């Protein structure tokens, strides 16, 4: 399938009927062919840090009836963003936050974070989240607590990923029409 095939389909006839023949996956693949970039690969995190980030992200946005942060590749994206967009101080704080996971877990469970079971890991992260929330309540969350940073990156990485947008939020590239007032519960084959 060529991008120009999409252009032809879009250029002829009514939008909805012309597009009906193109599955969303193929439509999106066209965009990638024309404008795709190599997927970002981990470059900053050590293997251990990448595993910690992966577990923390999956605890924040777990797999439920839809895929979670792990399937969305959030840890790899986090690595890219921390390496490319954080200033040196932010980066150091973030890596320190990851590195502290083991110490916090040992104190609470007697096990390094990755060896703890999921309820234990949740308990460790809950403690960190509570610490962050109390700072926020006190107006002292500046620079932001590690939990708020890792959660922001997780939400951003997940809800801008293909699975996050299409499977979790029902986003589709080409809705084909606009309706200003629809029933939230009503299934929409075209997505939002």
């Amino acid at each position, binding site marked *: 399938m060529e*991008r*120009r095939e*999409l*252009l032809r389909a*879009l*250029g002829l006839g*009514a*939008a*909805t009927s012309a*597009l009906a023949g193109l599955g969303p996956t193929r*439509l*999106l693949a066209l*965009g*990638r062919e*024309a*404008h*795709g*970039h190599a997927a*970002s690969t981990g470059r900053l995190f050590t293997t251990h840090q990448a595993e910690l980030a992966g577990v923390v992200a999956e*605890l*924040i*946005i*777990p797999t*439920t009836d839809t895929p*979670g942060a792990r399937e969305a590749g959030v840890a790899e*994206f986090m690595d*890219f*963003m921390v390496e*490319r*967009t954080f200033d040196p101080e932010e980066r150091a704080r973030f890596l320190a936050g990851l590195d502290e996971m083991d110490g916090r877990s040992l104190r609470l469970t007697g096990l390094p974070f990755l060896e703890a079971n999921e309820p234990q890991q*949740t308990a460790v992260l809950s403690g960190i*989240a509570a610490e962050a*929330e109390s700072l926020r309540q006190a107006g002292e969350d500046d620079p932001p607590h590690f939990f*708020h940073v890792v*959660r*922001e990156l997780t*939400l951003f*990485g997940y*809800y*801008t*990923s*293909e699975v996050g*947008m299409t499977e*979790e*939020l029902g986003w589709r*590239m*080409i*809705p*084909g*029409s*606009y*309706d*200003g*007032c*629809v*029933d*939230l*519960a009503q299934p*929409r084959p075209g997505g*939002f």
Partner: protein
Amino acid sequence: MGRRQEWDAIVVGSGISGGWAAKELCERGLNTLVLEAGPPIDPAVDYVEHVPVWDMPYRGRGNQEALERDQFIQKECYACDEWGSKFFVNDRENPYTFDDDKPFHWIRGRQVGGRSIMWGRQVYRWSDLDFEANARDGYGVDWPIRYAEIAPWYDHVERFIGISGQAEGLPQLPDGQFLAPMDLNCAETHVRERLLEAYGRDRVLTIGRCAVITENHGGRQACHYCGPCERGCITHSYFNSIGVTLPAANATGRLTLRPNSVVHSLVYDEERDRATGVRVIDAATMATQEFSARIIFLCASALESTRLLLNSATPRFSTGLGNSSGELGRNLMDHCMGGGARGTIPGMEDQTTFGRRPNGIYLARFGNVKGQDEDYLRGFAYQGGAGRSGWGRGNDVPGFGADFKHELRTPGPWRFNFFGFGECLPVPTNYVELDNEVVDKWGIPALKVHCQWGANERALLQAMSDQAVTMLEAAGATDISPYVYDLPPGLTIHEMGTARMGRDPGTSVLNAHNQCHDVPNVFVTDGACMTSSACQNPSITYMALTARAAAHAVELLDRKEL
């Protein structure tokens, strides 16, 4: 200079105004050369509206390092993002200067299509409330035209490009030739109804009037509601010159479009008292060349057209071609924007929207409409609209895990935003001149901009915020947060004036047909010509004035008066 070439007409610029000049001049029989400083773009390759966010390395946040280095001004525009930054100039190659205490943001696009590629697409007619404004309060000079003279040209332009909107019968915002309006959403309909109850027809919230077609029109396909028009549109469902006016010009067989052609200056013949052509620098090779024509249309954008005239000084016009009035460069305007308020509209939690509407609401000016009632002069209008908040609210609440994720799947409350755009008074102390110490990549002197908001613009911004709060309260909103952003002039990207139209050659640069008083075969039809700014988005008025000026120019040529 290289070889000379002859044309009937030269149009400088291929954007919103240049595309219209090209279409009208070609259709009226003139062999027309369109000179565009930037490169051509190929919609099939360069438009990126269907590239999903997950295919962008920074997921839409952009490479800030590159933006800081190359587009430190342009990045202030919302559309200069990870997808669209390629449609904006490189600020290092295109310098301009301003006073340290008077920042001005000059947002520019140099490519075939100009800024029509990534413009905001909102189109509102002016009324005589606007054309009579200068005469009424004494700022600036009187417009040499009234609504009745431009109305048929609004019709002409709207029929061709396709405008969607709702007729409302408001005297200060004349209705146009509308295709079917887009829907207001649930919360916007609610606010419209509450405001009608509270204010009657004085405050009618309507769907934005926009150059996005809601029905197939002129061989172009109706909008498919993918959302980000500013990244291009492969179905040409919004108006830009590449998809609409330039093809019409090309269909006549009389169009020559020459990209990568940086116009340096106009050539003026003292004996004939006419401009005879333009000097062009090839953007890539730096080779220079002259092109000649019987008439010249400057459509390079307000400040570029004026810069070109300033850089075309002659012994007779020592301060810039066509500047016997001394007004060239003066009376720079931009809409003051960013007073407003947000609030939550309770209820309607079972309802949402389908599709991504590339349009918002409009609430026409209501201050000083029936008389001078307010402490400020002139007025403002609102854009904005309602939407349910999304996953981003997860950053503002405690929590993580399955319940947290599930909560974010359902959209949050309806939030409504009234964002104001105000009229800017024309004053001579807001002006541009050539900066003789700075040149651009092609050796052309840069502009030095002197521009700041005055007391009236600041009063408008505050009133926008106050009135937005009052209306949100009337609509039953909660959690109302007013704001007044301190945004520099220029960033609204409605820069106007610096070569104003007027009746008197002693106080204006252009006449009622956008024709230079001093050099009658030069026409300036972009934002530079504007005598006042109104508060409506100006592009449709440039288009109508351009078409009108082109018709007049051809009549003059036919009568051998040029």
